[in-house]
């Protein structure tokens, strides 16, 4: 009971409250900087959105991943770190493992930062590689919008929670994200270690393979909304495909309903770009350890933190394009009219509205980060040939087909309704396959005796069909 109350307390009050505070701070900092010089709002947003929000979420994810894996494997997870000084209550303080984060950072900073003899001939490239892995990922958040444009303060400045909103929005993401491949391949090569080289070559080959699917996955969204600006894409998702009542209620034109295939392509490809399990053959800690095997201390830390920043940025981009960004699914206009128009409670306090929607954005981002953790700890590592097959023989043709099917439907019906009909049908099919398919597949598997389970075919079959019917999804049961 106490545990449930704690979880509710965190999920309902603390986390949304923290994001509300961050968004409000972002608005006011941006407002202040805009007063100093033109274009200052974006610079202010760098401070709060990129340096605070993204980095804090990414840092907390390092712990969340360990805690979540522990929960899935029936362990407690990290909970030992504490401060060995001061009064007893400080020494006893564990904070649910939160102190492991500063402990890890301090450990990595104060570790010996040595260079193996083999790498000394490529000293410059060896030093450059972790920087090249970190910097592109760090600057990716630049074009991602995290809050609506509102009018703020006495000078009535128009402020939006976005660092920069250039015409080429998504192209910036593709261009910068593909730079990260240099970091990994240079790290693998310059370490002068056979395993590191293997990891680096695998990483670069995998990343460029999936970059094609990454690009193709989003072409469909560009066609439906006729823009590459993430801000405009988010705004385009406020319209309703169908209104169910006369009021402000209906099915929003979110990307996930219009382009489920595009979402799957993009998500799978971007997941492969982050090189996390099940796509972690470049790292493969149980076989080759990977392209960063010769790096120690904070240089390794740069590789690691860039992976987690990538997780956050991927979740943020998916939120902006496929899940309506900061928008509520419905009722947003009604709520605004009820609270923020002339004579209502919050009239004149638009920052509350902005910060509220900003916290919605971050909650969606957190949910998608959680999905990524779930995938990371659910699936075993793919073999390298499976990864290449998935990228070239499945995602690439599927991406091409998706582009042209989307194109035909958009041209046929510019109101996007038929695209949504197809999209929802695909979503239903995917959900049905995911829930019903597991039992059947396992049964067929056991029947053929392919997986080596021939002897215990019956027991295996019965075992596999239980979760398919009870929980219906990949989420583990919580009781």
């Amino acid at each position: 009971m106490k545990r449930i109350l704690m979880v509710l307390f965190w999920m309902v009050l603390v986390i949304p409250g923290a994001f509300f505070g961050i968004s409000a701070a972002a608005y006011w900092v941006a407002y202040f900087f805009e007063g100093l010089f033109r274009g200052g709002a974006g610079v202010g947003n760098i401070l709060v959105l990129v340096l605070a929000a993204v980095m804090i979420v990414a840092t907390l994810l390092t712990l969340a991943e360990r805690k979540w894996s522990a929960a899935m494997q029936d362990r407690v997870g990290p909970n030992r770190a504490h401060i060995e000084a001061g009064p007893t209550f400080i020494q006893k303080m564990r904070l649910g493992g939160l102190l492991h984060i500063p402990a890890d950072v301090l450990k990595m900073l104060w570790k010996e930062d040595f260079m193996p003899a083999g790498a000394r001939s490529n000293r410059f490239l060896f030093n450059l590689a972790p920087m090249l892995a970190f910097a592109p990922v760090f600057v990716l958040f630049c074009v991602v919008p995290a809050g609506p444009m509102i009018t703020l303060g006495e000078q009535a400045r128009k402020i939006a929670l976005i660092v920069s909103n250039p015409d080429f929005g998504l192209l910036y993401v593709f261009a910068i994200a593909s730079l990260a491949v240099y970091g990994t391949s240079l790290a693998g090569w310059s370490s002068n270690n056979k395993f590191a080289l293997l990891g680096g070559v695998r990483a670069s080959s995998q990343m460029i393979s999936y970059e094609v699917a990454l690009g193709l996955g989003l072409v469909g969204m560009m066609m439906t909304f006729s823009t590459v600006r993430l801000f405009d894409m988010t705004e385009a998702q406020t319209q309703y495909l169908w209104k169910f009542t006369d009021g402000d209620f209906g099915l929003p034109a979110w990307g996930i309903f219009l382009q489920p295939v595009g979402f799957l392509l993009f998500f799978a490809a971007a997941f492969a770009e982050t090189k996390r399990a099940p796509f972690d053959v470049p790292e493969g800690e149980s076989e080759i350890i990977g392209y960063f095997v010769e790096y120690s201390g904070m240089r390794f830390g740069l590789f690691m933190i860039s992976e987690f920043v990538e997780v956050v940025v991927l979740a943020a981009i998916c939120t902006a394009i496929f899940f309506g960004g900061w928008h509520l699914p419905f009722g947003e206009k009604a709520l605004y009219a009820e609270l923020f128009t002339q004579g209502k409670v919050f009239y004149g306090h638009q920052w509350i509205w902005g910060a509220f929607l900003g916290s919605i954005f971050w909650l969606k981002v957190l949910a998608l980060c959680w999905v990524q953790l779930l995938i990371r700890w659910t699936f075993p590592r793919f073999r390298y040939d499976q990864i290449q097959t998935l990228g070239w023989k499945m995602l690439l043709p599927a991406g091409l087909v998706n582009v042209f099917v989307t194109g035909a439907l958009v041209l046929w019906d510019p109101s996007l309704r038929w695209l949504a009909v197809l999209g929802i049908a695909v979503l239903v099919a995917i959900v049905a396959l995911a829930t019903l398919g597991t039992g059947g597949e396992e049964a067929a598997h056991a029947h053929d005796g392919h997986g080596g389970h021939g002897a215990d075919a019956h027991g295996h079959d019965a075992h596999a069909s239980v979760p398919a019917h009870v929980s219906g999804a990949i989420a583990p049961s919580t009781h």
Partner: protein
Amino acid sequence: MNPDPLAPYLPMAVLLLLGGVLAVVISFLASFLGPKKPTLQKATTFEAGSESSGHARQRFAVKFYVVALLFIVFDVEAVFLYPWAVKFRDLGWFGYGEMAVFAATLVVGLAYVWKKGALDWET
């Protein structure tokens, strides 16, 4: 939204600069703070505890090169799709047909590569 077309570039430039500076500072902070006690053993190439044999400058599978070449072909295709996708509604069915022809030629290429087995990694 942007009356001034150059307005988005200042924050972007600041962020790009900050990313570079931060990456350099963090990695040099690490080498500055940590101890320095190099030993002969520590400097050897790490091979999971066993004696290191040979060196890393060896040949590796040609498939990685093939993938790199294929990547260029199909990524350039994707790059051509972006401007078309943005202007897609204005171009209408004619533009759709044109792009279908362009994509079809590349699909033929993909089919050829597939048939030749350049995408197979099992062997």
